[in-house]
């Protein structure tokens, strides 16, 4: 009997992807106690009876955490619940001090809303809720199964954690990457989190299933965990889509399971779970009372929202005559956008400001391992430098050297220019003398130019600039050379 493989192989599949993003909120203190919310402290030094779950301790909600979740919801167009509550999610794990997690089950703070991708596509959200983070298990050396013991640090236990759940609207790994970048931009604009994936302040799980192109079938959903960067999310999804495609094309079924992304090996593997079925036994936390958020407080939070990335991008396009590419890059992070606008305010040169920020400033930051937040360069310094170039005070080439020093040391450009003697030479007598020297030193090029070789002219300009260490005003050099060579 012939197997009807042809038909199966011919089917093209498309992925259906949803993301669950966990964001640690940038509060001063933890979700339900006054312990400091900080990454990287000595193990078990940011703990108290409440976040260690000692008998008799009780949680009290951090007002700021509620505000940050609601502001995120407002920024993403969600409805903010008039009534919300906290529930207990019951399961045992050594990193959970109470063996239940205070979370939100059926009455989350925010529902609906969407994340808009740069393309304009809207990825709808299901909900945003607030919960507490768990501690960290450190497995004594090597693979988990081989370790003889688990060590636990509860510093992270009780850190406020916001969970943002998308609908399965994403249709490719790249789109998932764009979603995360767009979401990260909004979160950083709002200042609700420091969104550092490598420190775990932003974590992501993905659900992915395949269906034949053009159908509305619901395929078997696979959950992927342990992705530690945007890039690993994209890679893991690419891997998983290929794996599921292979399974389906082989005429087999995708088994519903949770899979773990292995960054080093670049693959996902099924997570062995001892728990046969999760039964979290959610119920309202009797230690806490409901939240009632009236229109007044929600309106006040809405009024405090900053301009968000896409709105800012559109404004930059309209107001500054930038390219779409430049506007996207400048508005990707709030600090960059704000720095840009401050520079423009001082020098009125948006195009030049964009070029410098996206070019030499970015390179200098990378070279010195800095960020715009961390550099001591002031926007008015960069503005001054841009004006100096425009006004011929320094040459473009010298300005690059100045820029790096500004980024690295945060000094005033005028000071750097004076100290390094980088001011542009526009003095006619000096230029004449310089050009005279270059002509005298390069008779072959002069001869070549006179026989019609245009390239030789540029060589002579270059020699003049080199001899002046880039300080000579290049236009004056050209004029003088032309005049002398007739």
């Amino acid at each position, binding site marked *: 009997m012939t197997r009807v493989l042809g038909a199966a192989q011919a089917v093209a599949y498309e992925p259906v992807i949803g993301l669950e993003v966990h964001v640690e909120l940038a*509060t*001063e*203190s933890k979700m339900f*106690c*006054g*312990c*400091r919310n900080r990454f990287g402290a*000595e*193990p*078990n*030094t*940011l*703990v*108290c*009876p409440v976040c*260690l779950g000692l008998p008799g301790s009780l949680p*009290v*909600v*951090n*007002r*700021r*955490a*509620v505000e940050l979740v609601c502001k995120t919801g407002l920024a993403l167009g969600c409805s903010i619940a008039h009534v919300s*509550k906290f529930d207990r999610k*019951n399961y*045992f*794990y*050594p990193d959970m001090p109470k*063996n239940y997690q205070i979370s939100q089950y059926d009455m989350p703070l925010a529902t609906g809303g969407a994340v808009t991708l740069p393309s304009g596509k809207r990825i709808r959200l299901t909900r945003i809720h607030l919960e507490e983070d768990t501690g960290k*298990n*450190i*497995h*004594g050396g090597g693979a*988990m*199964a081989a*370790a*003889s*013991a*688990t*060590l*636990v*640090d*509860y510093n992270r236990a009780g850190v406020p954690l916001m969970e943002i759940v998308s609908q399965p609207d994403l249709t490719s790994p790249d789109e998932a990457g764009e979603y995360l970048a767009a979401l990260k931009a909004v979160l950083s604009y709002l200042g609700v989190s420091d969104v550092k994936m490598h420190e775990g302040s932003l974590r992501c799980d993905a659900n992915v299933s395949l269906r034949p192109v053009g159908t509305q079938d619901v395929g078997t959903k696979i959950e992927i965990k342990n992705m530690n960067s945007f890039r690993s999310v994209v890679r893991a999804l690419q891997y998983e889509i290929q794996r599921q495609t292979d399974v389906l094309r082989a005429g087999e079924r995708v088994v519903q399971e949770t899979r773990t992304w292995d960054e080093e090996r670049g693959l996902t593997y099924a*997570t*062995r*779970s*001892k728990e046969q079925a999760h*039964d979290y*036994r959610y*119920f*309202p936390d*009797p230690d*806490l*009372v*409901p*939240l*009632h958020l009236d229109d007044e407080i929600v309106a006040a939070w809405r009024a405090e929202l900053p301009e968000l990335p896409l709105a800012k991008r559109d404004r930059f396009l309209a107001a500054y005559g930038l390219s779409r590419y430049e506007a996207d890059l400048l508005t990707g992070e709030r600090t960059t956008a704000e720095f840009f606008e401050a520079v423009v305010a001082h020098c009125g040169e948006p195009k030049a400001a964009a070029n410098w920020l996206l070019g030499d400033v970015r390179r200098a930051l990378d070279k010195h391992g800095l960020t715009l937040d961390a550099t001591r360069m002031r926007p008015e310094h960069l503005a001054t430098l841009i004006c100096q170039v425009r006004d011929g005070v320094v040459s473009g080439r010298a300005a690059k050297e100045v820029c790096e020093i500004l980024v690295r040391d945060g000094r005033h450009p005028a000071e750097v220019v004076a100290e390094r003697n980088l001011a542009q030479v526009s003095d006619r007598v000096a230029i004449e003398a310089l050009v005279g020297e270059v002509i005298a030193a390069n008779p072959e090029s002069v001869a070549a130019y006179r026989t019609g070789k245009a390239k030789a002219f540029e060589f002579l300009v270059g020699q003049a600039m080199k001899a002046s260490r880039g300080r000579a005003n290049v236009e004056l050099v050209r004029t003088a050379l032309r005049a002398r060579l007739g």
Partner: protein
Amino acid sequence: MSNKPIDMDIAHVAKLARLALTDDEAAQFAAQFAHLFTYIRQLQELDVDTIPATAQVIPLRNVMRDDIVTPSLERDAALGNAPDWEGPYFRTPRILE
């Protein structure tokens, strides 16, 4: 009132509760629950479809604290009651996934 056995997979429930029960305990509990449920089943007599649930009797809402840092425990106090520890960490048997 008859002590009808109730619909409970006691081994499964004990697993969820992470509580090892002996066979004798399980059998004894099952009989006792059968008795108790002669009372609990009385709740089925009531029509509660339109009745709201009471999770808390007090009419409190929006009880929140300001985002202010208060001192944490000294690490020795944090680890002071731990049955086992290693350096600055609590220590448990390994986790089998």
